[in-house]
């Protein structure tokens, strides 16, 4: 919902903190996830993720969440799906070129990033979307990435 997602951006710092607490929790559940099998839990986790993030951010389930680098304003709500900041068409009142009734997603995102502790992540160049990941759980992907990373580091450390 448009009003909810604008409220969230106004409280970007708070949601940043929540996510920072939430992510390690998820990662701690990794052994459970792998016992149950990622494929089996994909559907239920995805449903929860879609429900929560859909309500808060109007999440479009691109499967590669960038909210922490976009001021908590979901870039997939930009009609041009820009992942790296606003186009040149932003209206003088800060509204969108394509949808004049909506505030530019990136004007919102910039304001959100200024409120966040790690708001400067907005300056990093984001990779283009991998369309194979659409409609998959970004949470589970993060968990698997973190676990893989930890394992690699462990291996490298052991080899030294």
């Amino acid at each position, binding site marked *: 919902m448009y009003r909810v997602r604008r409220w969230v951006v106004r409280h970007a710092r708070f949601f940043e903190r929540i996510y920072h607490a939430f992510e390690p929790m998820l990662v701690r559940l990794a052994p459970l996830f792998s016992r149950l099998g990622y494929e089996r839990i994909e559907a239920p986790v995805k449903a929860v993720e879609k429900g929560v993030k859909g309500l808060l951010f109007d999440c479009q389930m691109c499967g590669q969440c960038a909210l922490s680098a976009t001021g908590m304003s979901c870039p997939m709500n930009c009609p041009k799906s820009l992942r790296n900041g606003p186009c*040149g068409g*932003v209206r003088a009142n800060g509204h969108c070129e394509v949808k004049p009734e909506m505030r530019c997603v990136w004007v919102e995102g910039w*304001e959100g990033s200024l409120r966040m502790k790690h708001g400067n992540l907005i300056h990093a160049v984001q990779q283009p979307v991998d369309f194979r990941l659409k409609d998959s759980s970004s949470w589970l992907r993060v968990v698997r990435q973190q676990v893989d990373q930890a394992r690699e580091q462990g291996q490298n450390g052991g080899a030294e």
Partner: protein
Amino acid sequence: MKFDDEPVPGYSLPILPGHVSPGRLERVLRAGKFAITTELDPPDSADPAEVLKRAAIFDGYVDAINATDGSGANCHMSSVGVCSLLTRVGYATILQISCRDRNRIAIQGEILGAAAMGACNLLCLTGDGVQAGDHPQAKPVFDLDSMSLLEIARTMRDDCRFQSGRQITVPPRIFLGAAENPFVPPLDWRPHRLAKKIAAGAQFIQTQYCFDVPRLKDFMLKVNDLGLLEGPDRVFILPGIGPLASARSARWIRENVPGVHIPDNVITRLEGASNQKEEGKQLCMDILHQIREIPGVSGAHLMAYRQEHTVADIIEQTGVLEGRVPWYPGRDNPADLNPESPDALQGTLEQNP
């Protein structure tokens, strides 16, 4: 400016140390000259002569010609088509690629094709939304954005790889550009966003129309503070300028063309003039004089849509080229080429198999 190795039409210049492209635009900019670029209004036709005719209007006044890619989301001859025709007779072109109409497979293929046809400059654009043009029912693609397009183009050139990682045997030697609009919100982010574009690979920038010089000055100050105008990865900034035809058309543009910021004082000035068209041209020349004085500005991008004939006057009267005559087909040897004659085209092809 004359180089001792001026081009034979269709041939590339040698790539100098520290340069990435065999093109004249990069040479002029890196030599510290005030560069002028312009934009060719692509025809709604398949007639090559029409393209050459439209380019010839700028002969002797511009360093490179932008070939627009469905600008305003309207359908015209493709930018690769226009570039190919122009490079065959020796013009320096800037290939525009917008992310609106093609996915990454098409775009990367296009970059290779255009570079093979002699395009040395690429302007990476997001593109106007389809709602702005003559096919609002079209599917907006936006597989990439201007930033990821820049990065992919740079990877193709410097690492000889497609985004997939697959190898390219002969990379496209292209000077990479991007657009920026310092005149619309979020104003305080725009200089940082420029830094991001440079990090992604941008080497020159053409801005949206500038009718608000103080705003441009602010922007340039911050860009300078961020250190973006120095060092080997420095960026060359060419603000966009253009003549307004009348107060009425200025109002129309302000309401209907995405991203063009025209302050009230500009409209008042046009309204007060007895000859609004002349005043519009005068205003453009005034702005050109002013931006020239802004530290860090490397040239100007003159967009004179449907007033292309004024380009010569504006450049001539402001004297910004300081006597320099940019190369054009037939400049040094008039017998060399008559762009309108198909024989000449044929001749070029035979000389440069």
